[in-house]
């Protein structure tokens, strides 16, 4: 457990030290949302209708940002070797990295979403469900991305490839995440998509750290 918290603490500290840290992903999120009216036009009704989808797509892209360096930096400076000597399971350490990543990307996004929702004229009753859907769903995005990051750890410019690997797998999360917010905006019951969204996150939590740890080990063979 101390190895887990050591990794978590270090990654959070690194995120803080890297300048903007948590706010960088948030700024990216904001920029994406800000260009929407320029692309779609200032049609309030249309933007309002698209808002949940736009926020979710922005969240997906913001999560992908920087994911390619998640393990690469540790591989390059030799920290990954030390991970293997901790005597504990690599899966837990990989999970610690995922948690750190989510705390600086997914969590701030979820909390900021209602404010950005205001800019996109989202229905007031959809505000909290949207935030909730992001809070429940963004961990799945990080976890799925984790596997992609582990698979591309040895590649210099793996960013583009990473997106190609991660995005198709993130489709279920996207579908049910948007469904929660949409149902709420239209005043329908959103319990079902929310439950399935929780399910996809739990499933990703069960599978991804193991697959990522396996990929990291295999990459050294």
């Amino acid at each position, binding site marked *: 457990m101390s190895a887990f918290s050591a990794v978590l603490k270090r990654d959070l500290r690194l995120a803080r030290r890297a300048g903007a840290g948590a706010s960088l992903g948030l700024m990216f999120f904001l920029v994406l949302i800000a260009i929407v009216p320029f692309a779609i036009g200032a049609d309030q009704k249309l933007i309002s209708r698209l808002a949940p989808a736009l926020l979710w797509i922005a969240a997906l892209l913001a999560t992908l940002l920087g994911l390619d360096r998640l393990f690469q930096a540790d591989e390059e400076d030799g920290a990954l070797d030390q991970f293997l000597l901790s005597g504990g399971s690599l899966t837990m350490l990989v999970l610690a990295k995922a948690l750190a990543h989510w705390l600086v990307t997914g969590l701030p996004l979820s909390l900021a979403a209602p404010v950005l929702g205001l800019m996109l004229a989202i229905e007031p009753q959809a505000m909290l469900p949207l935030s909730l859907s992001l809070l429940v769903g963004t961990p799945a995005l990080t976890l799925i991305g984790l596997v992609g990051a582990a698979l591309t750890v*040895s590649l210099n410019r793996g960013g583009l490839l990473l997106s190609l690997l991660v995005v198709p797998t993130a489709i*279920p999360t996207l579908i049910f995440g948007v469904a929660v917010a949409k149902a709420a905006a239209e005043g329908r019951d959103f319990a079902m998509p929310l439950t399935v969204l929780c399910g996809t996150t739990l499933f990703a939590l069960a599978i991804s750290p193991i*697959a990522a740890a396996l990929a990291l080990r295999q*990459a050294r063979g």
Partner: protein
Amino acid sequence: MTDQTSGSLLRLANPAVFNRLADRLIAPFAVLTLLLFVWGLYGAFFVSPPDYQQGETIRIMFIHVPSAWMAMFVYAGMSLSALGTLIWRHPMADVAQKCAAPLGAGFTLLCLVTGSLWGKPMWGTWWEWDARMTSVLVMFLIYIGVIALQQAIEEPNRAARAVAILTLVGAVNLPIIKFSVDWWSTLHQPASVFRMDGPTIHGSMLGPLFIMGIAFLMLYITLLMLFMRAEVMNRRAERLELLAAEAD
């Protein structure tokens, strides 16, 4: 860490054995494939009647449906190969997977293109975001991801294992993606477009469809053997080149 001396003997022997077998089988398999295609296509175009609703366009089905079958079948085969690579580190499993991926992607693309050609007369549009086509599109993206990862990692052993893990992750996720896309499509049922509830397949169509399915399968096996043989020879040549370079 187990003793792998016997494993390394197998490693050397297997590809050679495979190539000898492939040398003998490829020609008869190719002939058989050709005969099946002639038989199947004859049945599809001359024996089977036009559909009472869709007319002659129904004949696209004889290409479209078997390629959809193959798209799934090839991925299932790749998943088995992936297990072979990860668990037994079997070199031929890696060769099989590497050669199967482009074939699977090809069948998937064929399925998408024929689906699009079929959709134009039926739905009045080249592309329809219906559940089936969307799922196949996602499957195509996953195939592309597998191939891209394979080409991106230079060291063959690392590439093999990374691709094996990705293939299995994809295999686990495909049913979930399929489920979510089905659910999503019921939510977004477009109202304006004419839809059909799947063609009721006339008995006289089933025969040719079945033969076309077998023909596609044989085509796949033949091409896979051809590709695998080339890959084995390629790897051997690379090894010999390295050895020669050392001797200089």
